[in-house]
């Protein structure tokens, strides 16, 4: 396999210049994610309005794959409902572990945006890099709710 299939330009670009790379001033949910194998750390911040993600960001230190994955994730889940975000995660997780779930037509464009990351499936030791931010997002939704919005800065 050619390394260029893993390190596509879009990955290198998002790895170098991640989007939404900041803390939210008033998140409704957040969670810390850690991959003890490589030391990658990520914090995902969310602001939910009902079940819609109205703001999302992340901070952390990681490799190009994990940083690009977190960056692309924040782009595709913004303004999505939690159910849509979950569907995207399910689809993405399947795509990088070799399963590959179907995606509703309405999310096809977002699924396409995540496609460059799926090259990671040829590198089993790196799959966790690509899924760290998504697992952290899931943890934020499930257990990272804040009683009242807090200032983190």
């Amino acid at each position, binding site marked *: 396999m050619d*390394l260029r299939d*893993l*390190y596509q330009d879009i990955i290198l670009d998002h790895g170098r210049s991640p989007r939404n790379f900041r803390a939210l001033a008033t998140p409704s949910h957040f969670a810390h994610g850690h991959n003890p194998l*490589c030391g990658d750390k990520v914090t995902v911040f969310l602001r939910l309005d009902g079940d819609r993600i109205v703001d999302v960001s992340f901070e952390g230190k*990681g490799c*190009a*794959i994990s940083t690009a994955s977190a960056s692309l994730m924040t782009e595709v889940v913004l303004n999505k409902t939690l159910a849509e975000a979950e569907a995207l995660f399910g689809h993405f997780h399947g795509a990088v572990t070799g399963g590959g779930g179907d995606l509703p037509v309405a999310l096809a464009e977002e699924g396409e945006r995540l496609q460059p990351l799926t090259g990671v499936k040829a590198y089993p030791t790196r799959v966790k*890099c690509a899924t760290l931010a998504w697992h952290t997002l899931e943890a934020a939704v499930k257990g990272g709710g804040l009683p009242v919005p807090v200032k983190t800065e």
Partner: protein
Amino acid sequence: MTLLLEDRAAIRPDGAAFDPVAVRRQFPIFGRNPGLTFLDTAASAQKPRAVIDGMAEFYRTDYANVHRGVYGLSARSTARFEAARETVARFLNAADASEIVFVRGATEGINLVAQSWGPAFLRPGDQVVVSELEHHSNIVPWQMLRQRLGIELVVAPIGADGALDLVAFQGLLGPRTRLVAMTHLANVTGHVVAVEAVVRLAHAQGAVVLLDGCQAVPRLPVDVRALDCDFYVFSGHKCYGPTGIGVLYAKRALLDAMPPWQGGGDMIRTVSFAETTYQDAPQRFEAGTPDIAGAVGLALALDFMDGLSRAAIRDHEAALTRYAEALLTEIPGVSLVAAGGSRLGALSFLVDGIHPHDLATIFDQHDVAVRAGHHCAQPLMDRLDLPATARASFGVYSTEADVERLAEAIRAAQKLFGVAAR
């Protein structure tokens, strides 16, 4: 390099120079993987034919359980097992083979000391001193003991050059210091620790000293009596032997004073439901059927190292390390981790703009095997403020060509990531 050890084998008996290419031919893995550039010996060393074939031969000809059978085969197996203990004792220059306890590895050796010596000799408030350079295996057993006994864990800092700060270390020692547990050669940075000074300063306070020799034994002549350490541990698999076998050396008087840590067969003298009496050391610490073939394989590995001359191995590792430092640091954007101090056989490095994990994946495409991550030393990573490093480490089979392929792989990674030479 500061070594107070006597170089008994500075010159090979046959007078030949150390030839890593010839040594490499004794390692079948390189025949089966001809393109492999293996730079992860610090994690585990490859095995020479003498060990692989010698263990198989032992199973074919002399194997039975030890210390029990009356029959000749068991006697032969026992003789090989106990001869392995003698080999280890000679290798470390221990005073007697009874000071050698076979364990699964350095990790188990440290846990044995923590769980047997610890409760027998430590009281609440007593202090165990470790350093910031330690592998998790020389941190966690002491934390578990802290939980159990209420002792204190004191951490000796490294200086700006990445080496142990001996002045600070001395300042931490006091009447409550009971044990100093420290690495002989740091697995992340490759720094050789001034353990002679550590032992001297600790003994002056009446503390005993445990040295973790996992990375030192494969690279340095180690003489436990010259070092005067009280405990010394190492793993067989890092010095060209099999996995699953390791060594705890302890001064005999200490072993005699330590209670058993695991109960079972082989470690007892008599057993009744009312009372059990225990064997003397070292059998007292070897409950159950030991890793017999592992001990035999370890002895073969140590003989293999002695055959090459340990001083020659050290010089080879030092020369390769100097070569790697020179070749890597001349690449723009590459820096060594903890750049000061004296390294032997291992070095961690960073490449600007490329995470170590990405580096390792790219290197793998060039069939260059390095370690990327925290190297089981998360506290040191925190101290250095690094999430991870890439580490290259060498063995007797490593060549200058391996180092050159590593440098090429770094340049290729820089090109791929668009961070090539400024």
